[in-house]
């Protein structure tokens, strides 16, 4: 295979810059019915917590113009079942596996990270930006002091895997948080997570989702995501993984030009389970059409 699409995130070499976004690919099994998972640059799995979580009561989702709002509430099988039952399946594929974790305390994050590191995942993404759980999570993504403390502690627990910090679009200053992650030794940052949002059903005068507020994702958030990736990538030297509304190769190219080293495809998978493959092929087409030798030549290539 040609190395034209290769990118590096820390010590990991990805065969192409396209991943799944956490929470939109489950633990891999369902998507594997639609394409060979080995074609992905990496697979980022559904967020996990120390203990299984039941998630929020339904309804959990509502479509909005060019997007959707979700409040899944991190329903997940918990660390033990993830390692025993989910990880063995995905490890059979020739694809780097990135686990996404969410804790309510620094200690929980640390335990999750060290156990997963030992279990042999290729990357650990710290979710400090989930708008849908009451405790922890996003609190770390909005408070710079707590954020520093968290990354420092977790960094010490992760020996093999690369460490990615997923930032909140609600962070008071995205550049400051990006630099904090870099200072504390993160291998990469990823953004953006969903944006807090709501919808109302006027026929019954009720919120459309039970949790009232959820996270907005999909094409509707792409211009915001692009702006934040642009700002964050100028603030740090570590790679940035960009996401938010990506559906096609053209969208991914925009994120690369804005400064992302890799991209993740989320909501678009719901519309078309093969969307990540379409994005990979779309990037290849772009390289051919514009005579670009390799994808890494696009990174941060925005002409100002």
């Amino acid at each position, binding site marked *: 295979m040609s190395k034209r699409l290769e990118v590096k995130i820390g010590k990991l070499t990805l065969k192409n810059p396209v991943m799944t976004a956490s929470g939109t690919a489950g633990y891999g099994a369902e998507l594997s019915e639609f394409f060979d998972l080995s074609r992905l640059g990496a697979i980022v799995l559904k967020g996990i917590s120390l203990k299984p979580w039941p998630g929020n009561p*339904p309804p959990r989702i509502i*479509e909005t113009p060019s997007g*959707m709002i979700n409040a*899944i509430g991190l329903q997940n099988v918990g660390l033990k079942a993830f390692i025993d039952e989910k990880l063995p399946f995905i490890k059979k594929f020739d694809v780097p596996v990135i686990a996404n974790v969410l804790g309510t305390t620094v200690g929980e994050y640390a335990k999750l990270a060290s156990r997963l590191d030992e279990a042999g995942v290729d990357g650990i993404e710290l979710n400090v930006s989930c708008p849908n759980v009451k405790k922890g999570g996003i609190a770390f993504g909005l408070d710079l002091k707590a954020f520093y403390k968290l990354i420092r502690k977790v960094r010490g627990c992760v020996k093999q895997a690369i460490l990615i910090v997923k930032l909140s679009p609600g962070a008071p200053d995205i550049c400051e948080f990006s630099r904090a992650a870099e200072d504390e030794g993160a291998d990469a940052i990823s953004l953006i997570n969903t944006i807090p949002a709501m919808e109302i059903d006027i026929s019954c005068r009720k919120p459309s989702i039970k949790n009232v507020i959820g996270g907005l994702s999909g094409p509707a958030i792409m211009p915001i995501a692009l702006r934040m990736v642009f700002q964050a990538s100028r603030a740090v030297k570590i790679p940035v993984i960009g996401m938010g509304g990506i559906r096609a190769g053209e969208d991914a190219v925009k994120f690369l030009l804005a400064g992302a080293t890799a991209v993740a495809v989320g*909501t678009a998978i*719901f519309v078309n389970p093969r969307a990540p493959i379409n994005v990979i092929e779309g990037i290849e087409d772009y390289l051919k059409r514009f005579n670009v030798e390799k994808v890494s030549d696009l990174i941060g290539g925005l002409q100002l």
Partner: protein
Amino acid sequence: MSSPSLFKAKVIKNARLNVEHFILSVRPEGIMPAAQPGQFFMLGIPGRLDPLLKRPFGYFRVKEDALEFLYRLRGKATAIMSVLDAGDEVEIIGPLGEPYPLPKPKKVPLLVAGGTGIASLYPLADAFGGEALILYGGRNSDELLLTEELRGICRVLGLATEDGSVGVKGTVIDLLKEFLAGKNKNRHVVYACGPRGMLKAVSELGLEGYVSVEERMACGIGVCLGCAVKTSTGHKRACKEGPVFRIGEVVFE
């Protein structure tokens, strides 16, 4: 069971049954998917941003090399579907979900349909080769579809409308209670599909059988966890462990 696939299909016909109801017939590119009654497909218009997500529709039938869906006008997506013309292209994922299990021998299948719930029960009735009993309710005569065809594929067809324009005046639950009065409930396996309130009422009658739920879905393939249904053993995915659940499993609130 055959695994799901993503495919394009050409619209052959989009027949209007009455003001709100249509049958969409499409010809898949490639082989015809082998769906079983109770399974569903996610259907959308490729490339569209609004509506963005595909919508779930029950497997209705395959007729003259076309895959057919019976649907009712509801909101954005179905409004767009209703103006599809022969030759237009749609994108489909399926077949998805668990089908209706078949009854133990000697039990008589009793199908309870509310409104467009008939869409997924129609092929089930057909699969029982004329043995099924069907109770079918709607608000008015416009909501009772294909009654002549249904008569041809079942043993008994009982109809109810809330306005009394056709059949018994009342809901399909009234009809069901009346039907069961004085009979041995254990002779039947019930299969119910319709609005939530109807499924709740069916579940409270102490019957053996199954309900098929309609939840909002984003992906339909089990990856988003958006379609959670509260069950006696925790949240389950309507699109994966469902949409068909054993009566008693779903906790209706």
